[in-house]
């Protein structure tokens, strides 16, 4: 007997999958630009998040800012909010030929995949890159379960 995958919609299903693959390809291509080329408003600032043992790291590129220009909150156990303002330098009697950099106030909230300890948040700013280190909350840490033999 021949086994085949159940395909409820036959060729329509195949076409939908094809479309999905195409769309993924398009979004992957423009993904790093935050969708700006598709006319979407990207969230600012873009973030990279990774975990390492018992910490979560959140990194953002914020050139021209200082830690003093930023407010960082942790609320509700796993909500991280970064707020700030980027000001344009003032040059008297200047004619602007090119303005690609963005300025103004911003606020970005992120739901972390696990609760963090709000007392153990460490933020550093180096060369325009913000790095926030958050310690996972006790309840989110892996626990070793001892197995007893009878």
């Amino acid at each position, binding site marked *: 007997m021949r086994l085949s995958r159940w395909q409820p919609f036959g060729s329509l299903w195949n076409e939908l999958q094809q479309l999905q693959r195409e769309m993924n390809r398009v979004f992957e*291509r*423009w*993904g*790093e*630009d*935050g969708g*700006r*080329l598709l006319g979407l408003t990207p*969230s600012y600032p*873009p*973030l*990279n*998040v*990774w*975990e*390492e043992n018992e910490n*979560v*790291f959140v*990194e953002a*590129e*914020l*050139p*021209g*800012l*200082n830690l003093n220009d930023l407010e960082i909150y942790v609320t509700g156990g796993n909500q991280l909010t970064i707020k700030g303002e980027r000001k*344009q*330098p003032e*040059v*008297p*009697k*200047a*004619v*602007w*030929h*090119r*303005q*690609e*950099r963005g300025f103004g106030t911003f606020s970005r909230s*992120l739901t972390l*995949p696990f609760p963090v300890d709000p007392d153990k948040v460490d933020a550093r*700013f180096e*060369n*325009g*890159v913000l790095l926030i280190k958050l310690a996972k909350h006790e309840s989110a840490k892996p626990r070793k379960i001892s197995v007893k033999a009878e």
Partner: protein
Amino acid sequence: MAEMTSVPQKGRAEAAAPESTRGGNYYTPQVDICETDRELILYADLPGVKPEDVDLRYERGELLLHGRVSRRPAAGSPFLLQEYGTGDFYRVFSIHESIDSSKISAECKNGVLTVHLPKMEALQPRQIQVRGT
């Protein structure tokens, strides 16, 4: 007056770069350029670039900017969320204005490079005193 052109403006994900021996991506930094009576000022966002890792040169009317980004600690761990890539910055500007290349100065602070390109003395406007007789 001073028309400045550069590599076509592209999103950060697009590489605009010379051949590299280091591998990895190159990104086009976002810049602002303004002009006053005395100079052109260029601001470039170079997040993650230390001042000593900026390579800036002016040759035959072109300003070449290369910012090296040191690898960040993220390299080993998988990302839970990745919204931007990291890599060196590279961009070339042609400057059709008579710049006094010996007086170009630059500083880099908090990931922003500021380049001052003073115009030739002969092109700078001069205030002429008008005396009554």
